[in-house]
């Protein structure tokens, strides 16, 4: 392979999470003299990727770490990998104390309210069950938990009087604290129960923009309102918000629930008014849901900000290509745009063995490179906690280089660490039309055809 020396090292029993490893891999690849580098756990998938990259991988199991580099100076590259890995914070290095190795152990150490589980999906069940057995609420960020186990967790949670958010719950905000992918929101009267993380982010960002704060966002996971799970978490979350003195209005964001679940929710004796944003054909979009919530509180609906493209006059585009990181946003955009080819890069099929597109832009950068002059690329960029600290840094250049017309939904608040205005400016500078409302972005894209 192109003559450069390569090195493959296996570190037995050394574990780091996939996001940390992605950061290290990326940093290594960017070093001068490094042609290819991957630092990953030796899962079946990662080993096959390494082989495709032309690395010979020795016998290793998923609990082993593999460092693979092809570089002019492989020793220096491996040394750098080790330096970066030791720099990555590991709980056991904080002190001489034995760090907790399980959620069970952590829960025994002192008071806690919530467990945030983001292990690989096949193991998330163990930690979530520990949480429920310890009487703690749990947010399962991981996906890949079977529906049977989801049901089991939620039934046990009912018995222990705790809330299970997820699996595949990307977003929650509890009393201002953002968990997973969440935005910096002002405290206020609207509580959100959401089966969709990015859906919740869109609605809360618009509310924040309108000067209306949010009390809590409780995620429940995409399958919660299905017949199999029965809306156990959504019903509990609605009751919790109903009981919360800071919540004056509840917004429920979900695909249309199974009929029996819809009836069960209808039957809840809630004193707090509920605005339903039931996504799907013919239903109001997320922006309309936010507007409904504002009207229900007697507040005015502002004009949602947008930053028009400064460059234009390209060939008239023929079709829309949706390149999305948020699943719900992709579905919403497809529905509003009416036609086009939409890809949800946050789907399991794209995230197995790699980080979420809100963190790792690589796949969308590639897709942008393939867009044609006659395309309108419609895409989302989600800001907030947990997301890429500077998405414009990796996406603005590919957008500027793309021959396609780019329309971008920027989901964020003014308080977000990425600086909403700077991001919007950078994307606009790169030639994109930028909208705070995904539905408006989709409508704009359609109008360009």
């Amino acid at each position, binding site marked *: 392979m192109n003559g450069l020396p390569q090195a493959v090292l296996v570190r037995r029993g050394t574990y780091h999470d996939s996001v940390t490893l992605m950061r290290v891999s990326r940093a290594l690849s960017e070093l001068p003299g490094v042609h290819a580098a991957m630092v990953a756990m030796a899962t079946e998938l990662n080993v096959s990727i390494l082989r495709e990259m032309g690395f010979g991988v020795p016998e290793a199991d998923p609990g082993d770490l593999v460092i693979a580099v092809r570089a002019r100076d492989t020793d220096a590259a491996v040394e750098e990998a080790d330096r970066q890995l030791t720099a990555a914070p590991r709980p056991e290095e904080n002190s001489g104390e034995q760090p907790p190795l399980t959620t069970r152990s952590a829960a025994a150490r002192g008071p806690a309210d919530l467990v945030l589980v983001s292990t690989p999906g096949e193991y998330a069940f163990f930690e979530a069950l520990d949480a429920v057995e310890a009487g703690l609420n749990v947010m399962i960020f991981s996906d890949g938990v079977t529906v049977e186990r989801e049901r089991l967790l939620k039934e046990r949670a009912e018995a222990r009087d705790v809330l299970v958010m997820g699996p595949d719950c990307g977003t929650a905000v509890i*009393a*201002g*604290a953002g968990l997973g992918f969440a935005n*910096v929101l*002002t405290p206020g009267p609207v509580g959100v129960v959401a089966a969709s993380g990015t859906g919740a982010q869109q609605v809360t960002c618009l509310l924040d923009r309108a000067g209306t704060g949010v009390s809590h966002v409780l995620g429940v996971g995409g399958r919660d309102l299905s017949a199999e799970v029965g809306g156990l978490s959504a019903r509990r979350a609605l009751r919790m918000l109903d009981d919360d*003195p800071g919540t004056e209005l509840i917004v429920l964001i979900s695909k249309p629930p199974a009929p029996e679940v819809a009836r069960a929710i209808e039957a809840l004796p809630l004193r707090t008014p509920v605005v339903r944003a039931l996504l799907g054909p013919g239903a109001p979009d997320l922006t309309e849901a936010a507007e409904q919530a504002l009207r229900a509180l007697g507040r005015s609906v502002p004009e949602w900000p947008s930053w028009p493209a400064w460059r234009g006059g390209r060939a008239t585009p023929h079709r829309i290509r949706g390149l999305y990181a948020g699943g719900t946003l992709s579905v919403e955009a497809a529905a509003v745009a009416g036609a086009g080819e939409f890809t949800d890069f946050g789907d399991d099929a794209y995230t197995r063995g790699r980080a979420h597109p809100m963190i790792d832009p690589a796949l969308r950068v590639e897709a942008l490179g393939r867009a044609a002059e006659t395309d309108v690329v419609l895409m989302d960029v989600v800001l907030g906690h947990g997301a890429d600290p500077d998405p414009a840094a990796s996406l603005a250049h590919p957008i500027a280089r793309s021959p396609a017309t780019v329309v971008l939904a920027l989901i964020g608040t003014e*308080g977000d660490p990425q600086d909403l205005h700077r991001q919007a400016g950078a994307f606009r500078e790169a030639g994109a039309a930028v909208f705070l409302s995904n539905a408006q972005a989709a409508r704009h894209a359609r109008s360009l055809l």
Partner: protein
Amino acid sequence: MTVSTHARRTRAHVSGAASTAVRPVLESQRRPARVLAAFPAGVYLEVRTDLEPSVIAVITGDATRLPNSVLLSTPLPQLTVGDEATVGDRTIDLGPLSLSVRRWWDPAPPLGRLDPARLAEAEAALADPPGAGLAGDEAVEQLADSCARGWLLGAVTAAERLVGLGPGLTPSGDDVLAGLLVTLRHLGRAARAERPQWLAGWLAATVTFDARTRTTPLSATLLHCAARGEASPEVIAVLRGIAGRQALEPALRRLHRLGHTSGADLAQGVAIGVRAVRSLSGAR
């Protein structure tokens, strides 16, 4: 330590969580500030501004979360009284740190509905807080009686006498008034009673009118906060206890432990407020 405007580039970027009370100051344009007092767990910054709160507490996890606090996620650097800082444009530049906010919390969270019958029980539990700095003080007695009777002139006169009364960063008189104001605001609203809120409005106007010249800068800021119902979590917890949303006794014990006499003084103010809300809302 002096801070030049060019030093910003070399500062370490850190983040934290802030009370929404300090949002107006933080989001307005940058203004100079200086360290008013420094403790191991926090510093108080006085900002040159007409906005209130004009004093911001930058604290670490161990300190009391005053309603004007910004809670750091990292350890506090070594700072001394008089050190300069800047506050504004969503940032606090302080010593080697450039601090931005990643979370907002509400220092006046709504209590929900209050069953007025709970007030009698609470009044008994709150009677005679141990160690109050102004126990038996004539102005305090007058304040309590006037409030309970809804006699505005008496209450305002007593409040004027109490502003700035007592030693320390937060004089006892101010703490009593702060406890009273917060209680009238929250319990009045929770009990859907007009007169306690009317009384709170007048008292708030009285104590904030010239607070900056009558008491310490920190205490003046805290009176402005209290006038809007903003308080530290220990005070809010007691009000939640009164409303039956959590256990009252442990919340009261935690409040009493605050500061030298601050906790007991605040509790005394809360007691006066509870008595006033009870009598003014006709729950007696």
